[in-house]
C-alpha cells in the first residue's frame, strides 16, 4: 500500500484496542446513503518507476525553448545551492512555525529574509511573503485604503503601465470591498506616466497611486515626480518593483522628497520570483511586501520578530499576530494563512549568495542583454522600438504585421519570442514585449535575430531561379 506502513498484525491489534471489528466500522457515523461508489476517473496506481517514466515523457514533449519572454516572470540563473538547501526535508516538510522553539531555523531564515527585503527596498519592515506579485498588489491596495487616514476614499489611481494581469487581479480581489480603480493613461511616445496625465485628478480624493517601476513595458518611470505629486495630493504611493532591478535602481524608500515632501513610497510590493525561483509554468512564486513602521499593523501576512527566551537568550517568533485571521477572524487585515515559505527560503539563499555586488551584476547584465537584443532585432526591416524612454530589461517592439503568427513561427523553431500585447494594449498596434536576462549569450540573441529576420523576410513576388 503506497505510503501506508500498517501490517496485517498492526491492523488487527489496533482494531482490538479501538474495539471495532473492521476499518469500515470507523465510518459507521456516515449515513449509508451518502457513501461513495468506486471512483472511476482516478486510474489505478503507478509505481514510482512508472510515474517517473510518464512524467519524463511529458516533460520531454514540452522541450526547452529558448526563452525571451518576461512580462512578470524572469529567467535568471539559479545557483545550485539554492534548491539544494530549499529541498532539505527540514525546510521542505516543516509547517508554519507556530511552535517557535522547534522552528528556529525557519523563523531565523524569515527574519533574515525580511531584513534583506528591507535592505533592497530601503523600507523599514517587510512581511514573510504573500502568494505572488499580482495578489500582493491587491493586498497593497486594500492596505492603502485602511492605512490612509487622510483619505475617505476607496479609489486608487492605477496607470495603464502597470502589468494588465495585476490590474485584473487587483480588481477581482478587492471588488467586493468596493475598492475602485481609475485608469491613468501613458505617454504614447515614451510609454511612461506623465505628470500632466495626473493633473486631472488634482484636488480629488484618492487613497493611493500605484507606480510600477520598471513598468510593464520595461520603461523606467519618473518615480521622484510621481511620488511627490501623490504625496502633495494626500495619496499613498504603492510601488510595484522588480527586486533584481533594485540593485541598480534607486530604491522605493528613497523616491521623491525633493520639494520637502515625504520621502519614499509607502507600500512596496512585487513579484519575488526573480530571486532564485524557477519559471515552472507560473508558480509557485512569492509576493513580497514592505512598508513604513507606522503602517506595520495594517500590513497583511505573517511577520517574524526577534525576542528573548526566559533565560534572556535571543530567538525568533511569529509576531503581531493580532492582525491575522486565526486571532482576529472577520476583523483580520486579510484572510491569508499559508503563504509561500519555501520560495522565501530559496530567495534568502539566493540573496545571500549574490550579495549586493552579485545582484547588481545580474541586473546590469540583464539590462545590457536586453539592449543588445533590441539593437539586433531593430535592424530587421519591419521591426522598431515602440518607446524611447530609458529601460531595464524589457522592451516593446512594433512589428509591421500581426504578432501571433510570428510567435507561432518562432515557437516552431524552438524560440519563445515574447508576449503579444494585442489583447492587453491594442492601441499600440502590433506590439511585442521582449526580455533578455543575463542567461542569454551573444549566440542566443543571434539565433533569435536570424530566425525573426527569416520569418519577417518580405514575401518575394518573383522567386529566384536556381
Amino acid at each position, binding site marked *: 500500500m503506497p505510503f*501506508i506502513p500498517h501490517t496485517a498484525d498492526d491492523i488487527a491489534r489496533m482494531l482490538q484496542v479501538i474495539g471495532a471489528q473492521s476499518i469500515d466500522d470507523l465510518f459507521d457515523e456516515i449515513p449509508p446513503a451518502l457513501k461513495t461508489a468506486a471512483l472511476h476517473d482516478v486510474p489505478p496506481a503507478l509505481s514510482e518507476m512508472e510515474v517517473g517514466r510518464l512524467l519524463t515523457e511529458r516533460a520531454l514533449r*514540452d522541450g526547452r525553448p529558448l526563452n525571451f519572454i518576461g512580462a512578470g516572470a524572469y529567467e535568471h540563473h539559479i545557483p545550485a545551492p539554492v534548491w539544494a538547501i530549499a529541498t532539505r526535508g527540514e525546510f521542505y516538510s516543516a509547517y*508554519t512555525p507556530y511552535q517557535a522553539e522547534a522552528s528556529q531555523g525557519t523563523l531565523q531564515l524569515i527574519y533574515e529574509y525580511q531584513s534583506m527585503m528591507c535592505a533592497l527596498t530601503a523600507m523599514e519592515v517587510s512581511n514573510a511573503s504573500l502568494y505572488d506579485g499580482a495578489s500582493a498588489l491587491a493586498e497593497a491596495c486594500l492596505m492603502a485604503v485602511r492605512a490612509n487616514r487622510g483619505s475617505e476614499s476607496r479609489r486608487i489611481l492605477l496607470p495603464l503601465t502597470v502589468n494588465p494581469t495585476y490590474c485584473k487581479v487587483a480588481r477581482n480581489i478587492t471588488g467586493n*470591498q468596493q475598492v475602485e480603480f481609475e485608469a491613468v493613461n501613458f505617454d504614447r511616445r515614451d510609454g511612461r506616466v506623465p505628470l500632466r496625465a495626473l493633473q486631472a485628478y488634482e484636488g480629488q480624493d484618492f487613497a493611493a497611486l500605484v507606480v510600477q517601476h520598471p513598468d510593464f513595458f520595461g520603461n523606467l518611470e519618473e518615480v521622484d515626480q510621481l511620488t511627490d505629486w501623490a504625496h502633495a495630493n494626500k495619496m499613498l504611493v504603492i510601488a510595484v518593483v522588480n527586486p533584481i532591478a533594485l540593485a541598480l535602481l534607486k530604491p522605493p524608500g528613497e523616491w521623491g522628497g525633493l520639494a520637502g515632501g515625504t520621502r519614499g513610497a509607502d507600500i512596496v510590493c512585487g513579484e519575488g520570483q526573480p530571486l532564485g525561483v524557477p519559471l515552472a509554468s507560473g508558480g*509557485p512564486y512569492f509576493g513580497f511586501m514592505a512598508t513604513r513602521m507606522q503602517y506595520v499593523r495594517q500590513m497583511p501576512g505573517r511577520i517574524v520578530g526577534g525576542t528573548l527566551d526566559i533565560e534572556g537568550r535571543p530567538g525568533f517568533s511569529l509576531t503581531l499576530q493580532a492582525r491575522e485571521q486565526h486571532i482576529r477572524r472577520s476583523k483580520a487585515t486579510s*484572510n491569508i494563512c499559508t503563504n*509561500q515559505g*519555501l520560495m522565501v527560503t530559496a530567495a534568502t539563499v539566493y540573496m545571500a549568495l549574490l550579495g549586493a555586488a552579485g*545582484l547588481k551584476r545580474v*541586473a546590469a547584465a540583464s539590462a545590457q542583454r536586453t539592449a543588445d537584443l533590441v539593437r539586433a532585432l531593430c535592424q530587421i526591416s519591419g521591426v522598431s522600438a515602440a518607446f524611447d524612454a530609458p529601460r531595464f530589461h524589457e522592451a516593446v517592439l512594433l512589428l509591421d504585421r500581426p504578432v501571433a503568427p510570428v510567435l507561432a513561427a518562432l515557437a516552431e523553431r524552438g524560440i519563445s519570442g515574447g508576449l503579444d500585447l494585442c489583447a492587453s494594449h491594442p492601441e499600440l498596434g502590433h506590439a511585442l514585449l521582449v526580455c533578455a536576462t543575463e542567461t542569454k549569450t551573444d549566440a542566443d540573441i543571434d539565433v533569435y535575430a536570424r530566425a525573426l529576420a527569416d520569418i519577417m523576410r518580405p514575401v518575394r513576388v518573383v522567386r529566384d531561379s536556381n
Partner: protein
Amino acid sequence: MADLNLREPLIFELSKPGRQARSQFPPQPSVPESAPATWDIPAHLRRGAPPPLPEVSELQAVRHYTRLSQLNFSIDTHFYPLGSCTMKYNPKACNAYAMLPEFLGRHPLALEPQGFLACMYELQEMLKDITGMQRVSLTPMAGAQGEFAGVAMIRAYHRERNDAARRQIIVPQAAHGTNPATAAMCGCSVTEIPCDRNGDIDIEALKSAVSHETAAIMLTNPSTLGVFEHRIEEVARIVHDAGGLLYYDGANLNAILGKVRPGDMGFDVIHMNLHKTFSTPHGGGGPGSGAVGVGPRLSPFVPVPLVGKDGERFHWLTERDVPQSIGRLSGFMGNAGVNLRAYIYMRMLGREGMVRVAEFAALNANYLMKRLIQTGYEAAYPMRRASHEFIITLKQENRRYQVTAMDVAKRLLDLGFHAPTTYFPLLVPECLLIEPTETETKEELDHFCDAMAVIRREMEREPEKLRSAPHTMPVRRLDDVRAVKHLDLAWKPAA
C-alpha cells in the same frame, strides 16, 4: 553549558566587506560598439549606496542555512501530529519529477505546453471524481484563496439572480479563522452558530439564523471538532430552502477521501488544500494550493484559467471561454508546481489508494485517541468516532495541576515530538487537536503515547518542569509579549 553553541549567528554577522561567492556572478557581457546599457539610466534613477546585503562565501551560505535547517522539526525528522494540517509524508518522487528541467524552465506565457497541460487536465478530472463536483479550477494559490474564490462565486451567483442583498455567511463557532476572514474580504457579514454537546451543528440555531439575507454556510465535514456531521443532509436542506448555498472547507478532506463526496452531501462548492490531502510540502508555511470544485449552480463563475481539451489538444480556458468567471486571482495560473506534485502523488496512490488514505487516517486517529484515554487523558467527544483527528481537553489537568495545553505542547518538543495544534478550536478549553495521518506506524503512535504518559507523571510530580518547558530546544520558551512590545523585525547595519 553547550547552549551558547546552539545559536547560529545571523547571516549578516558572518558578512565581511569584499567577500563574494564569485562563481555565482554572471560574466560581464562584452560591449561591442555602444556604451553599456546601464549608462543609459539617468543618474537620478540610479541607486546610490548598495543595499546592505550580506557578503559571504558560497560555503558560508551553505553551512549557515544547513545549520538553520537543523534547528527545525519537520515531517522528515519528527512525528508532527498537528491537527487540521495533515502532516503526512511528502513522497520524494513528487518533488523529483516536478523538478524535471523542462517543467522548471517553462515560461508561463510560452505557447501551451501539452505535456504539462495533460497533467493538469487529468488532475482536474481526478479531483472532480473525488469531490463529486462538476468543474474544478486549480488556480487558487492556498486554502484561504480557494475560500475567497468560493465566496466570491457565491456572491456572483446571487448577484446574477438579482438577489445581491444576500451577504450573510453562516459559520459554526468552531470554524477555521480563515472562514470569517474570507467572508469579510468578500464584503459579507458573519453569523456564528453554536454546536451541540455531541459536536454537531445546533439545528435549531441554524433554522433561526437563515433568512432571505443568507448567502451561504461554510462548513468542514468532518468538523474541526474531529467528528462527522451526521445531519449534513438536513443542514443542506435548510440552507438551500432558504436560498443559500453550501460551502465545503476541504481542510479535512483526508478523512473522507473515497468514502463520501462533498457533492453528494449537497455542497455547491469546495476548496481543497492540495498541501494537506494530496501531500504537497508545507515548506515552512507554504506554498499551498487551494483548488476549487463547483457544482452546477456555481459552474459558470469558476476562476480562470482552467485547462480544456479539444480532441487531443489541451489549452487554457480564459475569461473569453468562461465569460461569467470571477476572473483571475494570480499573475499566471496559480501554484502550477504544487499542482504538479499533487498530480504525481495521486497517480502513485491510484484509485485504490485514495480510499486507503481515509481508512488508515481514521484507524490511526481512533487508535491514538483510545490509547490516550487509557493513559488518563480526556477526549472532548469520547462517545464519537474520531475522524482523521480528535481533541484532547486538559481542563481537568489545568485545574488540578495548573498546567496548560501550551505547557504540554512545549514538553512534547523535549520528548522528540512536534506538538499537536493547541487552543483550536477555541470553544474547547485547554485543547490539543491531534492528527496522526495515515503514514505513521503503530510504533510511532505508541512512542507518542509513552511520551504523553511521561508528561502525565510529570504533571503530578513536578509540574514546574512542564511550565518551564521546553528544556532541550535551541531556545527556551520565547517571550511573545516582548516581541510585540519591542518590535525587532529586521537586522540593521550598525550606524
